[in-house]
């Protein structure tokens, strides 16, 4: 039995410890937002935040996340309550097929948490682990920049390091708990 925190809730999984976290989340907890793309840590479709860091979970055995905090796309926001970044994604019509976008949003969210106003090169760097086969990169960058400038302009700042990732922050977090 492995215990960890999933989107703010303590959970337990009765699975073999070498099972990659991705499959535990998808098959066991039935959260389907995180995707399978390569199984080798190469594409980022399976990205989740592990203690706030965007992590490839298709190659991460579930034992490695015991007692840690996991945030999946379902924990970032939802259709009724979009995060600032998700809203920027919708406004810029970022997704095409959409399959990579959960992973993209996780990496972008983790980036803005640690670096609220990234340069173009810093965005390239932070997003380099996430492939989009539909080629939405120009729009992803635009959406990150617009979310970052919005957060800076409106002076929203949170305990997360200067960027209000969740909008409106407090309620979204309550909603998830």
């Amino acid at each position, binding site marked *: 039995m492995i215990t960890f925190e999933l989107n703010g809730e303590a959970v337990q999984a009765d699975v*073999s410890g070498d*099972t*990659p976290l991705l*499959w535990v989340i*998808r*098959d*066991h907890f*039935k*959260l*389907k*937002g*995180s*995707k*399978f*793309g*390569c*199984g*080798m840590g*190469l*594409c980022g*479709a399976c990205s989740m935040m592990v203690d706030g860091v965007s992590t490839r979970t298709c190659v991460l055995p579930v034992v490695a996340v015991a007692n840690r905090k996991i945030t*999946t*796309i*379902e924990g*970032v*926001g*939802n*259709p009724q309550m*979009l995060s600032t970044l*998700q809203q920027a*994604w*919708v*406004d810029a*019509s*970022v*997704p*095409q*097929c*959409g*399959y*990579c*976008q*959960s992973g993209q*949003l996780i990496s972008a969210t983790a980036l803005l948490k640690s670096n609220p106003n990234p340069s173009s090169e810093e*965005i*390239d760097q932070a*997003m*380099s682990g*996430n*492939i*989009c*086969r*539909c*080629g*939405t*990169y*120009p*729009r*992803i*960058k635009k959406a990150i920049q617009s979310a970052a400038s919005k957060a800076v302009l409106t002076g929203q700042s949170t305990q997360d390091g200067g960027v209000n990732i969740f909008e409106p922050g407090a309620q979204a977090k309550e909603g998830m708990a």
Partner: protein
Amino acid sequence: MSQQTDPLISSRRSFLKNTAMLGGGLLIGLPLSACATAGFPKAGDKDFQPDAFLQITPDNQVHFYMPRSEMGQGTYTGLTTLIAEELDVEPSAIHVHHVGPLSDYENPEIGFQATGGSTSMRVSFKPLRQAAANARAAILDAAAQQLNLPKAQLTTQNSQVLAKGKAFNYGEFVEVAAQLGVPDETPLKRSNEFKYMGKDMPRLDGVAKSTGTAQFGIDVDFPGLHRAVLVRSPVAGGSVKTVDDSAALAMAGVKKVVTIYNGVAVVATSYWQAKQAALALNIEWNEPEKLASFSSDTGKKWFADALNSGDFEEAFELGDGKDGLEKASKVYSAEYWAPYLAHSTMEPMNCVVKIEEGHCDIWVGCQTPDVARGLAARICDLSIDEVTLHSTFLGGGFGRRFNSDFVAEATEIAKASGLAIQLVWSREDDTRHDFYRPASLARFNVGVDKNGMIESWTAQRAGPNIMPYTLDEVVDGKAPGFMPNGLVDWLSKRGYGLFNGLTVDHSSVEGLYEDYDAVNKDVQHVTVDPGLPVGFWRSVGHSFSGFFKEGMMDEVAHGQKQDSVAYRLAHTKNNPKLNGVIKLAAEKSLWGKPLSKGHFHGVACHNSFESSVAQVAEVSVVNNEIKIHKITCAVDCGFVVNPDIVKAQMESGIIFALSAALHGEITLKDGKVQQSNFHDYPVLRMAQSPEIDVHIVASDKDPSGVGEPGVPPVAAAVANAVFAATGKRLRSLPLSLS
């Protein structure tokens, strides 16, 4: 859209067959297929699989049953916008549903229900608007009767009828409207009346796809669903000789191990268990000899030998190409090569199949649902009415999901195991068992007259054809039910031989010769096919011919000491659309003006899917590394329903094509594909993506394709810029200077 393929005109008589009550409300259906005459069957009682495009319910909900697949190209938004405009409803208020197969959803240009060939907007533009306009007229008729007012005093606004300062929901009138019937051929809005069409609008699937809530095939799940992993013959077309499954069967979670026509499947409770157990299988294979004897390092000679054999079929003639070459004052000759390519959709192939009590349910995201359903029916020995196909979003298509091999596999596994299963391909499976973009070798001889104008344009292409591989599936999936299986097998297997001898597959030569003015043209084809399955890869034949033809044109222009843009303009006098985009791309890229130090421009243009695209690449070369800084793109795709989606599709096509231009290559060793995942089959990442600047030509012509036409010019624009930078002419893909 040409007159004879315009479904509106050809199906005028049978247009708008039916209105019916179904769970209350007004149902509007229309046949997109030119010859559809049947009315709409009743919705199945097992599942909600309605048979209409449009439904308006008494509580004022508008439902649109989308006849095409959404795989990123924007159909979901684009087609819904057509409905919204003529029905006068907010696009975002319309409930959009993916639907299963129905003959009335057939693609009139393809002949079955298919999403491909960049046709969705092209073939839906008028029929869907007409359906919605007629529905709105029917509601107004009913409102006039119910409110006892002359129709002229009624108008509509956002799902409501306005009368004498009051607003009434459409839903209040649908029952009467259904009884009164739906008028035919209501006039459509004029472009100056458009509220939604022609404007940038956010994608309607944007929220679902930004929150992880959009459902793809791989996300389908229900209690009792098992996962399956299939180990296929490493040489395509092989079969199982012997299998030792004892170790696999002993592993945790494993329920069944079954052998099907192309491999051995492990069925387990979870994907990870199935995947681990599949590694423990011990299989010997029967391998097809011809493909097993093919290796890429020596195999290019197969293509060269074919080209040298002189054993050509004539594909196209205008004037006398050979005579033109003899009379020419100068002849330019060159050979171009393009390798096999995998699609690498982000979502690996997958399919859920449940067979129970004489019924088969399939959940899948695919481009050809009725072929898939037909294949499953044949495998299960059921009629197509006993097979229900539930469509989902597609995590990328690019032509890969035009094939239904993964549906056939999943159905075979479900049948053999007796369990409801989800077949999930790994990335390795996906890279190694694709229907690849056909490798191609082409030779051009282009003759120029004494004035420097092209006198004769001739091309010869050697390579495999796509159609035989497609025929195999389509015959199996679409053969009438009364044909015995044996006959269908014979026909589809024979199809290969029959086809290759019968005619030149147009997709093998398309794009090699059409675009430039020349009085003499000659195109010949010779088939050489090692036996690796080939299929439709975004822009199909144009994916290689765009590179070939545009490289060649640049060579001729350079040989004639002409400016690349000016020379193209001089040879597109009969092709005003292409001429227009070349001018626009040149103007917007500041062609001919000084660039940053070390930066060079290259231009290319191409017509495909009835659209014209020109691109200028800005490139630098440092230590033999090609860096692409910017692509300026001009497109003429007729009237644009949503400019932002057209721009997105150009961006997408450009980045997709850059992956191929810089990295893409599938190679074989003894018939086995050597690449497996994104480390050895890399695709572009954000840091390598150039700035992209898209310009759309304003047009009131009917819409034409956008999903694919952005692809063909890209590699040539880059190669031509590399030539400008280095003087080296790159005639082989992927582009490499070392």
